[in-house]
């Protein structure tokens, strides 16, 4: 791990980074510690930008509620300021919930997002087999 992921704590930083990442997938990782995404961040760096969003900071709570983030860690993908969705066979397509099983899985997911985005799609299907996808149950509250 040669460097730690860039951590964002302010709403403005998140805004700028979403706006400024052009032609690259922006991977917003909502989480706490620096984690195994670090090494893969460099490998993917030619077509993706990986950023850690500190979920404990106050300003970020806006985003957390916007994206409905309840499970740590969760990952949201952006491309050219568009929110990319991924159908991985789970209930929630807007984000990736949970940790990745392997580094290669993460790279595969980012590559699938990139390819779909270059074609102009806004939702792509997940290339991973279902064993590698973290499963969860969606509970609705106050609905």
């Amino acid at each position, binding site marked *: 791990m040669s460097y730690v992921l860039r951590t964002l704590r302010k709403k403005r930083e998140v805004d700028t980074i979403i706006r400024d990442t052009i032609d690259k997938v922006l991977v917003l990782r909502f989480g706490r510690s620096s984690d195994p995404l670090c090494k893969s961040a*460099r*490998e*993917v*760096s*030619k*077509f993706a930008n990986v950023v850690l969003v500190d979920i404990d900071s106050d300003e970020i709570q806006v985003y957390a509620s916007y994206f409905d983030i309840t499970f740590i860690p969760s990952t949201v993908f952006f491309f050219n300021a568009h929110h990319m969705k991924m159908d991985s066979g789970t209930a929630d397509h807007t984000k990736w919930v949970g940790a990745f099983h392997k580094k290669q899985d993460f*790279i595969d997911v980012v*590559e699938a997002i*990139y*390819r779909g985005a*270059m074609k102009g799609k806004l939702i792509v299907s997940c290339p991973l087999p279902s064993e590698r996808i973290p499963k969860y149950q969606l509970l609705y509250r106050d609905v």
Partner: protein
Amino acid sequence: MATLADSFLADLDELSDNEAVVIEEEDVDAGNMEEDVDGEMADIENLNYDDLDSVSKLQKTQRYVDIMQKVEDALQKGSDISNLGMVLEDDPEYQLIVDCNALSVDIENEIIIIHNFIRDKYRLKFPELESLVHHPIDYARVVKKIGNEMDLTLVDLEGLLPSAIIMVVSVTASTTSGKPLPEEILDKTIDACDRALTLDAAKKKVLDFVESRMGYIAPNLSTIVGSAVAAKLMGTAGGLAALAKMPACNVQLLGAKKKNLAGFSTATSQFRVGYIEQTEIFQSTPPSLRMRACRLLASKSTLAARVDSTRGDPSGNNGRALREEIRKKIEKWQEPPPAKQPKPLPVPDSEPKKKRGGRRLRKMKERYAITDMRKLANRMQFGVPEESSLGDGLGEGYGMLGQAGSGKLRVSVGQSKLAAKVAKKFKEKNYGSSGASSGLTSSLAFTLVQGIELSNPQAHAHQLGSGTQSTYFSETGTFSKIKRT
């Protein structure tokens, strides 16, 4: 008249040598000539078989004696390097060294002649020995040791030869076809061996002398390879000028031992290195780099020898610089390669796949291309129900395949596009065979409805196939519509 008859008879023997000449006077001359030839032959035989002294004259020559004397004196005097100022050629020591070089070459030739002599004599006793022991000095020593002995177990050859060769020699001796030599020939042989050994000792002395003076003669060369090896190289080459003239690849091989032919495999034989093998630089390089080091050494020492032969750098600085260069290069070879940097993955789809083309690919694609038969089967005529494999609309439909009036009687393997280009060159197209290229098909066909159906060659030629070939892009087609305006 008798002579004329003789001359005619002699003319008939045209294959014999010119000495069988015609006229009497010439016969006399011829007789003389023949005698002379015989005389020479006798001399040669004498040379080879009887007298050692007529073979090996070197030790008796004045020149040899002189030079050996001087060498002895100089060796006892010790080194005396005080005449750097003098021009090289005038220096008597330099002259002596040049003479020594020439002498060492002469000695070597002499040794070879003596070796031949010994070999010829000893052939009666032990003919196989010459092919087992190649080196002349070793051969002489072995012959001296064995003498007239028939049983080789009594002879101790330890130290003269490598033990493998000793074993082979003993085995061969037990089955040899030789017989013990008569006394005089044995004496002569032993004498010749002694002479060869003294010559060898003399050569060593000469080389030692040259070596001690090496730093004076060729400072640059001796800085690189060391004075012993430099002396040997110079001795084998026959002088500094001769060494300088040689290309580096030859210098590398000076003094290389000959192949060991005793039935031993050459898979383990050493690579082609000569005296260079004995240099300190070579010995200190790891074995994997030795070939490269040897080549490098040979080339740099050739350069140094050239500098020395023209006396361009008497102080030896050039040699030191070259030695440093060699050392640096060898060190660089031994460096580990630079560490590999992990590279990020390339952007997906940024490098388009390189599609290949060409004749080979086209031929491969032809194997999976849609054939004319399949094309016909895929299409249907308007208003005409197609036949099917199970009848009555069940099973696979046949489309226009085999339908009456389709213009083609038989659908066979269509010509590939490549072949069509070839066919285009031959303008006479298939008149009567309706597309079939094999000679066994006929142009008659029996259909269920009409009986015999004949094909109209004109119609076929114009139709260009029953709708499977496009007429617009056809290479063989003609105008499709000519309307009078």
